[in-house]
Each structure stands twice: as C-alpha cells, then as structure tokens.
C-alpha cells in the first residue's frame, strides 16, 4: 500500500507492506538515524516525533503515518546548524556510543516543545523511556536543561527582532 507522509518537512509517498513497522520504512527511506534496539518499544532508540508526539517507531505500524508529520533527528539539525539540544548533548559529553541519542533527542525535543521551563524531574520523566547503557544519564539531564535555556534565549531574540 502507499502512504503519504511528511518527513522532516518534505512530502513522501512510500510503498509499504500492510504489516510494516515505521522504523523499517523510515530506515529504508534513508532516515538511518532511526535505530533498532529491541523491537518491543522498550528502549526508545527508534523514537520519532509523529504529529508532535514522541513515538517508538518499532511498535508503530507504518500505515498509521498516513497524512502524519514525522520528525527524525536528521530534521532537528545538522552538524553545520545543530539544534540547541544537539549542541548541548555533543558538548556536555552526553553522547558516548550515540546509538540511543536520536531517540533521546526526540524525547527531549518533545519535552521542550510542550514545556520550555522544565525541571530536572520533568527531564527525568520525559527521557525515562530512552535507555542508555553508556553515560549513566547524569550529563544528558544537564544537557536538556542547558538547551532549554538556549532555546528560550534564541526565541526571545527572534521575538525581539520582530
């Protein structure tokens, strides 16, 4: 079957099997940042934003993406122009092997989108579904709080310019 979906702001028409999972479809379409970790929705490294909500794409049928807007970490920023969260993750030592980063960054972005002033506990809540075996989580919680401040500063500047 064919699904029409917007991925990182671009329209895509994808040919998918009825039982295909979104993780496989996105990876086949070239969005390799979406990782496969457990296939059971337990580790969060396949998380993508679907219509503004973080979802584990390994347990989401691709068909459900019909008409949806999907954001992967490639759509958040690139090495030349990274998102504040990506910048903060990179600089704080929150990335070791990096395999869980795309999913955790999506979860963190979903948090900041809905709550620009999170507390450390809010961050812990938001990132709880994203397992990381390398870092011990301490640095990534700080990174999200740092990024929240940076995002607020930028949006203020933008508003100020207006």
């Amino acid at each position, binding site marked *: 079957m064919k699904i029409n979906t917007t991925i990182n702001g671009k329209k895509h028409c994808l040919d998918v099997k009825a039982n295909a999972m979104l993780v496989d479809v996105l990876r086949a379409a070239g969005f390799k940042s979406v990782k496969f970790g457990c296939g059971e929705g337990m580790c969060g490294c396949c998380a993508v934003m679907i219509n503004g909500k973080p979802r584990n794409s390994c347990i989401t049928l691709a068909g459900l993406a019909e008409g949806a807007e999907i954001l992967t970490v490639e759509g958040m920023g690139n090495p030349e122009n990274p998102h504040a969260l990506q910048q903060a993750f990179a600089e704080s030592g929150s990335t070791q092997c990096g395999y869980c980063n795309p999913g955790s960054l999506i979860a963190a972005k979903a948090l900041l989108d809905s709550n620009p002033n999170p507390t450390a506990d809010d961050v812990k809540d938001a990132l709880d579904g994203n397992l990381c*075996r390398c870092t011990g989580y301490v640095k990534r919680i700080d990174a999200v709080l740092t990024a929240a401040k940076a995002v607020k500063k930028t949006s203020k500047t933008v508003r100020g310019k207006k």
Partner: protein
Amino acid sequence: MAKTTRKTEEKSVKAVNAAKVTKAAKAKKETKAKKPVKAVKTAAVAETVSAIPVSPLVFEKPEKFEQVNHSLTKIDAMGLVCGVQKYVADVDFKDLLHIKVLGSPHAHAEIKSIDTSSALKVEGVVAIYTWKDVPRVVRTTAGQGFPEPSPYDTCLLDNKVRFVGDRVAIVAAETPEAALEACSKIKVEYKVLKPVFDPEKAMEKGAPVIHDEKDCRVPIPIFYDPKHNHCSHVETAVGDVKKGYKNADYVLERTYYPHYAQHCPIEPHTCMAYLDEYDRLVLRSSTQVPFHARRITAQTLQLPIKKIRVIKPRIGGGFGTKQEVLLEDVCGLVTLRTRRPCIWALTRAEEFMAARTRHPMVCTIKSGVKKDGTITAISMRIISNTGAYGSHALTVLSNCGSKVLPLYRADNIEFIGDTVYTNLPVGGAYRGYGATQAAYAMECQMDEMAEAIGMDPIKFRQKNHIKEGESSPIFKALGEGREGVDMAIGSCGLGKCITEGMKRIEWDKKFNKPGTGTKRRGVGMCCLMQGSSIPEIDMGAVFIKMNEDGSFNMLLGATDLGTGSDTVLGQIAAETLGCKLSDMMVYSSDTDMTPFDVGAYASSTTYLTGGAVITTAKKVRAQIEAVAAKMMGEKLEDITIKDGVCYGKGRKNFVSFARVCTYAMYEHQQFQIGAIGSHISHASPPPFSAHFAEVEVDTETGEVKLLKYVAGVDCGTAINPTLADGQTQGAVMNAISFALTEEYIFDEKGRMLNPDFGNYKIWSTKDLPVIDTFLVPTYEKTGPYGAKSVSEISINGALPAIGNAIKNAVGVRLTRPPYTAEKVLAALKELKSGSGKTVTKSKK
C-alpha cells in the same frame, strides 16, 4: 624494595636492548668476515635488527598540557547527535540477504536429524545450512591474543546443542520474515540429554558431560579437563595461609553468589558481509576486536587472512560482549556460499540468551585478622560458571585474583579457582572481567573483618590498602594464561578518593545511624582497583601521516566503540605533535587500512595505544623538525613547535606545519611525512577508586532505595576529564542496576524467562539516585602523559558498596544479589527470628 623492582625492570629492558645492539654488531662483524660487502648493506643489516622497536618504559611529563587533560568535545559527537554517523546496518546493499539462526529449544541435546525440505520451500528462502554443510573447525569465539587462553570448544555449527539458544541451523532469505518462517519449518529430531545447571553439581562424579566431543582442546599448555566439565583451574599461594590463620585473632568466612547479567548494548550485535571488487570477503561488524575477528573468521571458514577485511564503523556500545566473534563466521559463510551480501542482527532476546554474559560465580572468601587491624591471611576460592562454552573462562577467573587481591597487604594469600561448564548461557568478557565478582566478596569481607575487630571499616581499609612504591606478589603469580608481570605501584590516589568521598557522602554523620521507624538508613563503601592493559601480551599500533594543510590522518587499529578513544588518542597525538585536536583526523578501525591493535578490552586503549600514539607522533615530529630546520637554515636542536608552527632560535624565523608539509611534498627531496609505531606495556598499573552508597531500607516491604552514590577515581592523568567522568558515571549506573534489579530468571529446563527490557530491568532516568563522581589526578609514569585506565573499574563498586550500606542500615548481609525487596525482606525475617544462618566463624 619496590624501587629495586622498578630499577630491575628498567635494567632488564636495557639489557634486552643491549643484547639487540650486540647482536647487530655481531651480524655486522660476521658479514664483514665473510666477504667485503658495501657499507650500505652492513648498515642495512644493523638497521633491520635495531628496527625492532622497543617500547618506552616511561613517558616524560611536559611542563604544561596543551591538548590532553582538557575536556575537548568528542570528535564524533556532532555526527552522532545529528544521526549522520554510520553504524553497521546504516548502509544499503542491493540484493541483501537476511539471516536468522534457529536456536535450540533444549539445554542439552544431540541432533539426530534435521529436515530442511519444507523450510527451503518457503518463498524467498535462499539457503539453509546445518552442521552437515559446514567444515568442523573447533575454535574459540573469544577475541583474545593468539594463541588464546580460552579452549577451542565451539564450532560454526555442531551436531550437539549445549544451551537453550545454541545454534542449530542458519537460514538466509530475501526478507527477515521469510527467514523466520523457514526457521519455524525446520524439523529437528533431538535426543534430549540430561542437562546440568549448577556449577558445583557439574563437577560431581556422574554429572552429564557437556563437551564429550573428541576434538575440544586448549591451544596453549594449560589445565583443561572437559570430561569432568572442568574448563579451567588456577591455583596460587603466597606465604602460608595456615600459619596466617593461626596468628589471627579472628577468622571469618562467607560465600557470595554474584549473578548472571548481560551487557545490554543498545545496538545489538550486527554484522554485514559482502564480496568486494577483488572477490574478497568484507565484514562490516559491530566488533571490539576487528583483527581478532579477521583471524578467527579466517580460521573458522578456512580462508587465508588476506581474503578477509573487517571494517568497524561506529559501534553502539559493547562493554565486552562485542569482544566475541559471534556473527562474522555465519555472515561470511552465507556470503561466500551465495555470493550475495547479507546482514544478521541479533534480536534482543538472542542478545540475552545467545550472546555473552557476566560469568556467575560462587566466591568463598576466608580471612584472618588481628585486633590491631593486620590482615594475617586471605583465601579466595572461586567457582565460575562459564555456561556451555569456555569463552574467557580462564582469564576472567584469573582476574578475580589478580585485580582484587593485590589491593590489601597480607603476607599469606591463597587463590584457588575453577571454571565449570554448565548448560546455561555462555559467559564472556564483561566490563570488570572477574574483578566485579571477586571485589564484591572481598569488599564485603573487609567490612566483616572491621566489624569483628571493632574498627571503622574505612580506617581498616586505610591501614591496609596498597600504596605508592609497594608491590604485591600476586602481580607476578597471576597472569593471563601464563605468569604475570611483577610491578610496583607507581601512582596511587586511593587515599584521596577515600577522604574526599567520605566528605561527599557525609560518612561521619551517617555511618551507624540507621534511625528509628520502619525506614532505616545506612552508608557503605568499598575500595577498588583494576589494571591497564595486559602487560607484555597486548600490542597497539598507530599510523600517522601529514597533509599539506598541516593536518594529520591518524589510523588506529584501536577500536572506539563509543568510549571516545578516537578523541582521547587524537588529543595525545596533538599534544605530542604540537598541534590542535581539530587538526587530527582519526580513523578506526579497518583491518585493510589501519595497523594492528588487539582491540578494545582489558582497560587497554588509552594506556596502551596511547603509548603507541606518542611513539609514532614523536617520529613524525622529528621529521617535521628536520624539514623546518632545513627550510629556515636553523640548527635542528633550536627548533621548537607551538600550535602547528615551527620556530627557529629565538623565535625569529618560523614556518607553519602547512608550509613544512607542502615543502616536503612538492619542493625539495620530496617525501611523505609520516610514521608507524607500536607499543607494548611492561606493567599494568592499577587505577584506584573508592565508592560510597547511601540507602534507605523499608523494613516492612524490603525495598531498598538508593539515595546517593559517590565514586572517586584515580585514573592518573585524565586525558579528557569529561569523557573519563562519563566512563565513571556509565559504569556506576550499570553496576547499580546490576546490584539492585538486573537478573536472569531461568525455568527448570534452563530457558531464560525474561529476555527483554520489560522484564530484565536496566535503570533509566527516573530510577536515578544522586550520583556524584570525581577524579583524583595522579601521574603514572608508565602511561601516556601519566594516564591509567578508567573504563572498567567503576562497575565493580555497587555490589559491595550497596551491600555494605544495607548491612549498615538493617543488619543483614546479603550474599545473593540482586538485592530485591523479596530477598531483603526474607533476610530481615530470618534476622528477626534468629534463624539466619551465620556462616561467619569467629575465633577466640
């Protein structure tokens, strides 16, 4: 005495050098004697002999660090967080085959027959291989130095299965779904054999023999008795423990049972194979050991090494489980037979059941102590369960002694260890590597001894722990499959780790103050050591070449699996060359493109390969200085380098690195500025650490709440403090969840019942207690810029520190982790009813 040891060591290496020189001179003489040969040739002979590199014993300390000891951003960080760094599965191939492996449903069985006819009819199935279709080559899957200290007891496919999940058949199909369906249609007739799961029972007379095949063997002369499920044996003694116990005021003994655990890298083991333009087999693999993977795959598939190339792209964590060659042989077989590219990625359940695990152990520790705090004797008796195959069986066992016993002074020490086969999942390398299990027993015992003599457990440790300049006979007594290397402690920051950690946990305020009510609080601590590389066994090599913009390519066999070693080694190179990290382009690892390195294990990369980086970068720097001197008409000894610029005397003349390389490449007496260098270590200096835990135990439910965890680490010079701290935090977190929740649950047939993240609980952000980590700088002369290892040590602390804290809070000593509410509650009930078995025996 210690200094003498050091001097002797230096002397002996000098002696080796001298011997080489004499040999060279002799060679020269002999050549001359035979016939008058041109001087050029004679020089060449001498050069050949002296060209065998000798690794430096010490690395001098620069006045100031420019690049190392700075928290520079990891060089791959931005690519990782933007999702553009490529892991194994992140490349596309046309006609890619998908592999699934049928696992055994039985823990112990012979395969009577396999019928693949209906499975082959499944649409999209391309090939199925069983034991009948592949050559029988016994070897080990353990990626270790060659010949390996692990038994050759594993085949690509066998006609016997030895644990639930053991390989039965390999299916290659156009889609993963077709491969799975075919697996379900393979008809296997098994002769089910009696399994054995308990390592102590496996050693009993009449126990089922797991490796009854005729061809299993050990490739080096070490103990091996598979007919009695006896995989390895280590025994060593120093002094006279019997006498030690006689002289003790108290003799205590207790047995601890550290449990099964899995590494849980978020990226499961993944391998892709394809044939390149020269018809060579290329393996793109999530491996910690690309060179061992090439060698073992060549051995298994009976190919010359030159026909195989192993590429390690970005790796999604390993922690030891990717030190195993588990997928490469299967993928290689499929690609060679079908001539098509293929991929195999383990499912999470396969990762738990059929990858590798932490060896569960029975650790019995006995010790004698005098009232003044002198430890008179220590006996450690280990029974290690290696599961169905003997991967890392001997070396994990040896490490129980060698990475734990030297920490405390005792004149009489005994270590007896046995590794035993059972029909359970296979043990392997796991961060900590035996030290985790043995430090648990030892550090609980330290608390027990302190309690017996009425001394504060910290004071007791401070009195007894090894200090700078001291040595331990254990270093020489316990090696890895052979005698170890004697050494004295060159750097020890443990004292500071303890005092600073005490402050941070508020020890004096909290120790022995459980409070009243149903929730009681307690603090516990432990001291730890590990090693840095396997001395005189591990080798790392590095190639550096210069580019005409003044940048450098550094090609490393060392394997960054997420640890940041590319960055750390890049910093060491930049420091030595006199440039910035941003001018280093680091590439690891690829058996075609990079020089050899044993790989990422044994806490070796920073310490060992870092040494190779310095050796190589010095050679490159010498070439740069020579060209610069020539260009400026300056004397070589007057050249100085700073930030990629070479200066002449008095800094009047200068040329940039870019000019130097452009000159060397295009202008005069052209040559490539570059060098290759290798390094072996002659010591394995221990990093040291002190860990502290504060817990609250609910006496009504048994629930243990970890409130705070403090870890101080002496890793010498932290080449990159943020990354070193990250290693500590990650190891601490892994250890905490190992101590409190992670657990393999088996049914009576040896099948793991919880092979998923829903039922095997690894901690996440909401579980996080307050974690406070700090580094205590020391300078280790034998390490690059004073560095020691940092990655493994901190995984050894949580079992004893939390165990001691629980004891401090509620008075129960738990010996069978994880410390779940059920176990704590049961222990509390036993304590209350007075039925608690006292294993500890006191004398006098």
